[in-house]
């Protein structure tokens, strides 16, 4: 009997991993990255990233010491880069949750090659995002006012405010994402433990693997826990960015006060997240020789999602204009026509439209969405475009208040710029450390997608025999393989 995991050639299906990939080669490819010396490129990247993180630390120190007046925010633009960066980073995280939870529930097996990577990205992006609400309060020692803690002032946050919902949404998101990531890591950490050559590695990975022995019982509990966490994470994909969009939508500022915001923000979040996964994946896959695990097929599927979400975002932009016209409200029309499409911030608006709406349209062509260079450039453009989207939404709705006497302009200061690029540094620092120490591809999950992982697999029908490599690493049995 043949395997369920074999691609059906008649339907044009192809293998999820390259021909000739075996259980052993998957383990080797992933594990060897953390077991050998870091390549020079890693060190160069790491030093640059750490330097930017240092700049971030210094800029935040200066901000705390001096006050948030060091930012360019001032009347009438009281929200600017701080919340732009917050929304941008939170949005980037969403691809990780979508890939790990939603695609898991929909049995999209191609997710296995990229989910670990994307989940790590989620966690690091949320860490970067969380910096901003923390420091924007100015007096950072009062940041504990944000959660509702009983206190002797009998003072509570406003439960009607979406800013409080944000605190719940983002902290839940971070906790669930971290747990999900860690639970998924346990079998792979055990693989690392078993391969460890030094005592320290053995103890550290051994402690992190929580005594995983790959027994049938372990796998049963693991699969159940993973399914539950996927179920918990799935609503978060939709809820977190909906709540973030409420920060704007529940206010009565023209340009913000729209019901389209929640779905529009969620689509944008997934859009930017996939672009970030694409950027990082293209580099890592080339540097570490992971092309057999993250194949062109994966990249094409991600590009399709980028095309879909990019078009959704484009539709939302168009709909905002239509509603501004259709409402007949002068202030709404002013925001869209005179503050966004034309006026002093038109440059930002048209950068946003070209990057977010026009550039993904290239992916209607099968040739272009399979082109590495195009994928890389578009992924960068989308990240730029999505940053500008948040900037445009926030600043162009604020800089012209209702009265012309309170019209202004926004210019970032050096500290704004340092803090933004500093968070990029922090993100890449964490990311490079992740690549160096943690299995960056879910070894056990990718193995489960091989034809050999099917219990009904019959090697006599196989085109290539890799049962040998499998026997050598009996402790690394994938999820779908029952204990024998």
């Amino acid at each position: 009997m043949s395997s369920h995991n074999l691609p059906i050639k008649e339907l044009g299906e192809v293998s999820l991993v390259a021909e000739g990939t075996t259980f052993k080669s998957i383990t080797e490819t992933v594990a060897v990255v953390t077991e050998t010396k870091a390549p020079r490129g890693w060190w160069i990247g790491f030093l640059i990233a750490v330097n930017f993180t240092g700049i971030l630390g210094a800029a935040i120190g200066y901000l705390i010491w001096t006050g948030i007046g060091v930012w360019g925010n001032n009347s009438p633009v009281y929200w600017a880069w701080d919340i732009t960066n917050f929304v941008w980073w939170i949005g980037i995280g969403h691809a990780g949750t979508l890939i790990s939870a939603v695609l898991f529930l929909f049995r999209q097996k191609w997710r296995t090659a990229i989910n670990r990577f994307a989940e790590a990205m989620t966690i690091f992006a949320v860490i970067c995002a969380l910096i901003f609400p923390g420091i924007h309060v100015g007096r950072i020692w009062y940041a504990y006012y944000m959660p509702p803690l009983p206190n002797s002032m009998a003072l509570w946050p406003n439960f009607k405010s979406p800013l409080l919902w944000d605190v719940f949404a983002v902290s839940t998101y971070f906790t669930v994402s971290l747990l999900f990531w860690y639970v998924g890591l346990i079998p792979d950490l055990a693989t690392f433990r078993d391969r460890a050559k030094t005592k320290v590695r053995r103890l550290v990975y051994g402690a992190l693997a929580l005594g995983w022995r790959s027994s049938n019982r372990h796998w049963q509990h693991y699969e159940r826990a993973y399914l539950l966490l996927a179920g918990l994470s799935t609503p978060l994909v939709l809820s977190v960015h909906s709540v973030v969009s409420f920060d704007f939508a529940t206010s009565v500022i023209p340009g913000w006060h729209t019901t389209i915001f929640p779905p529009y923000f969620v689509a944008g979040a997934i859009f930017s997240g996939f672009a970030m996964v694409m950027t990082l994946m293209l580099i890592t896959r080339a540097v570490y020789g992971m092309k057999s695990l993250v194949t062109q097929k994966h990249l094409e599927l991600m590009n399709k999602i980028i095309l879909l979400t990019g078009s959704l975002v484009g539709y939302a932009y168009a709909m905002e204009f239509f509603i501004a016209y259709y409402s007949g409200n002068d202030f709404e029309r002013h925001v869209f026509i005179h503050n966004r499409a034309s006026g002093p911030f038109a440059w930002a608006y048209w950068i946003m439209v070209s990057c977010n709406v026009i550039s993904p349209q290239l992916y209607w062509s099968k040739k272009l969405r399979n082109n590495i260079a195009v994928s890389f450039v578009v992924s960068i453009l989308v990240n730029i475009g999505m940053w500008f989207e948040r900037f445009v939404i926030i600043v162009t709705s604020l800089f012209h208040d209702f009265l012309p006497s309170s019209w202004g302009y926004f210019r970032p200061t050096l500290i704004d710029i340092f803090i933004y690029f500093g968070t990029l540094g922090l993100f890449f620092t964490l990311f490079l450390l992740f690549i160096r120490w943690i299995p960056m591809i879910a070894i056990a999950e990718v193995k489960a997608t091989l034809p050999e992982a099917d219990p009904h697999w019959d090697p006599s029908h196989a085109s290539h025999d890799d049962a040998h490599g499998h026997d050598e690493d009996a402790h690394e049995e994938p999820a779908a393989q029952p204990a024998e």
Partner: protein
Amino acid sequence: MQLFPRSLNKLPLVAAAVLGLLGPAVVGGVWYYVTPKNFQVGYAPTQPVPYSHKLHAGQMGMDCRYCHANVEKSAHAMIPPTQTCMGCHSLVKTESGRLTPVRESWASGEPLEWVKVHKLPDHAYFNHSAHVSAGVGCVSCHGRIDQMEVVRQDKPLSMGWCLECHRDPKPNLRPKDQVTNMEWRPEMAKNWTPPEVHPPQHCSGCHR
């Protein structure tokens, strides 16, 4: 390969037990100790003159307003000047060594530097006259001053404590002629009904 000793299997249980005890202990400790109830109440600085409220207000029954004269009209309950002390002490206990700083102040014109006991932060607006004329007794916020040898802070003066009364002022109201009476109890005015007062509960009521 055995990496860790077998006894480590108990770790989750031990960790759960320790965290289960430590968590509530930390929360309870912060709840009880890191509050003005703990930090503020009991503050009793040494004053330049060992003045006894117990003697003056308690045993001799002097009215609070004899010294804190403007409390019904002014936002601040004034600290009496040396002249108020000398009104009596130029005749009574004129030789007392404990009163030397008062006589020196009287002679030189330099005021005595009393130490403030009940401190409110600068961002909290407080008006004595508003409270006194609404019928809030001195004792409600200051405690039994008439029994204190050295004045100590008796109430936490925290925002939550202020709000408790602002949300439900009636239990702390009394007939206006009983405001300074330290021993007044609600049973003493059975036929009296507290007036309808509406103390502010919004932010700018006190943070102006």
